[in-house]
């Protein structure tokens, strides 16, 4: 029995984009699931907006769920392939009994447009969308209940660069519009370096370094952070090499 996550002290600032980076097996997905209250911790407390949420009863948890949402990596498997787009987005609204019937559908269509999907695709099924469009669908579903906090567990892995950039821009827009707080879990340090406000680095179940993005990237203290940074492949060195005729 190995601990997935050990001795973690971690804070996420409101309305920020905090990134949790690490290699596979470092425990970052487990952290994300605990913070989204999809898994119970063995020890320790989790506080959300001054409330201790790690010890809530099921009923209280259900009431709090709309505020903590999660978007997964594999949208093809995270979305029910038998549901249409509007059914997928409307489901959380229906479950929480906020709206019903025709109101559900029109709200779902609104959300689709907000994430950049055309209303005309309301009755398509997930597998008829491209990967990027599916992630937009997942985002629409996540913001349907007006959450405060969204965990993005490798939600951008596996997407093309240009799709990734578009989805990131969408997420940034949504953050401004709805005052969202993001926890971006990723093994891609390059991606994280372009958007995160704060970065926490995990290694073998512990957070080995954390701080504002610029500080961690410019001045990495822990050797694991340095190793992660070193593994990012840049394009620049080529241009430098070309400039000075082959020496870098």
């Amino acid at each position: 029995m190995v601990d997935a996550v050990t001795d973690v002290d971690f804070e996420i600032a409101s309305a920020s984009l905090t990134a949790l980076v690490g290699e596979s097996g470092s425990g970052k997905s487990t952290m994300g699931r605990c913070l989204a209250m999809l898994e119970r911790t063995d020890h320790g407390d989790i506080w959300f907006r001054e409330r201790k949420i790690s010890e809530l009863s099921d009923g209280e948890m259900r009431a709090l769920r709309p505020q903590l949402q999660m978007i997964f990596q594999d949208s093809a498997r995270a979305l029910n392939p038998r549901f249409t787009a509007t059914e997928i987005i409307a489901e959380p609204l229906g479950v929480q009994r906020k709206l019903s019937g025709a109101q559900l559908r029109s709200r779902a269509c609104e959300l689709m447009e907000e994430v950049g999907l055309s209303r005309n695709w309301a009755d398509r099924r997930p597998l008829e969308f491209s990967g990027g469009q599916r992630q937009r669908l997942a985002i629409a579903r996540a913001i349907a209940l007006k959450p405060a906090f969204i965990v993005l567990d490798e939600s951008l892995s596996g997407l093309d660069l240009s799709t990734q950039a578009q989805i990131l821009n969408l997420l940034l827009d949504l953050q401004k519009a709805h005052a969202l707080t993001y926890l971006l879990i990723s093994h891609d340090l390059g991606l994280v370096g372009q958007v995160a406000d704060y970065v926490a680095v995990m290694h073998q179940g512990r957070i080995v370094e954390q701080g504002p993005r610029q500080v961690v990237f410019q001045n990495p203290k822990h050797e694991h952070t340095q190793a992660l940074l070193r593994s990012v492949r840049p394009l620049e060195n080529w241009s430098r090499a070309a400039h000075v005729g082959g020496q870098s």
Partner: protein
Amino acid sequence: MVAFRGRTQPLGTCAKPAYAPAVLRMRGLRVTYGAAPVPALAGVDAEIRRGEIVGVLGESGSGKSTLALSILGLLPKSATTAGYIWFDEMNLLTLEERDWRTKRGAQIAMVFQDPALALSPVMRVGDQIAEVLRAHGRTSTQAHIAGLLNEVGLADTERFYRAYPHQLSGGELHRIAIAQALSCRPEIVIADEPTQSLDASKQNEILDVLQALNRRFASTLIFITHNPALLSGFADRVMVMYGGRLVEEGPVAAVFHKPLHPYTKALLQLVPSEESCKRRGGEHLPAIPGNLSPSDYSAKGCIFASRCSLKTSVCEEESPGQIAPEEGRRVSCFNYVH
């Protein structure tokens, strides 16, 4: 200082001489799947030279995977093709199924995207490599296979020989897929996004393995990816694809240092760099506006016109052919950046 990976290899040792003989030639390659309204590949002309590492750079919908399948004759029966692919004095597009048996795996081999899916879940790894060797009449003893596993950096060959795919990690499976593909020493290896699901450090290890093997056996590697960063310090030449067309081609250093096609330029701006990591929080990334849509395919002019920032009136009227502004470089654009 942001300590991104520094490649200390100077330009010269990577680039292959431009006059190496062509091992594969594609002319007017056109592929349409069944009843699809748009072609997956719309007239590709290219040459692959012996011993080089060519990166095929493209996003989804660019036709890069179709290119790989066409070279191996693995397109579905419903696909229609036009043009030719010359290899070993034969047109691969018109090859009979029985003639493919001596080519696939032996002369042209493929490393698939997800090795966990590309290996049979109920056969031992050693047996799977042995099957490929046996299919082409090569020695398939355990010692020989152990040698192949060593070549890709797997040391505990006994364990790997007897293991089933589900018992191994992602990185190990990728190496095994490479060992299997190279087992019959093919002339051409096609790698289709072979590092997709791996962490950055494991990705780099796999690229190192591929590069080392390419040098050692002087085989040709066609490396398909959507991430330009992987080609930097790895590939010799790059072919940039968009919407089933080849939009730019040239040596990697030259293309990445001075991209000519607006799409290439916009794509390269999205690659994380020390500069981009200094961006302020909340600032948008320079995403390419719009999407590749079916109407782009049927447009008279350039396929990238609807998303291009350098678009002029001629771009919507005529389709730009291939222009060769410099030795060894080609671009398909009227307003290429020069």
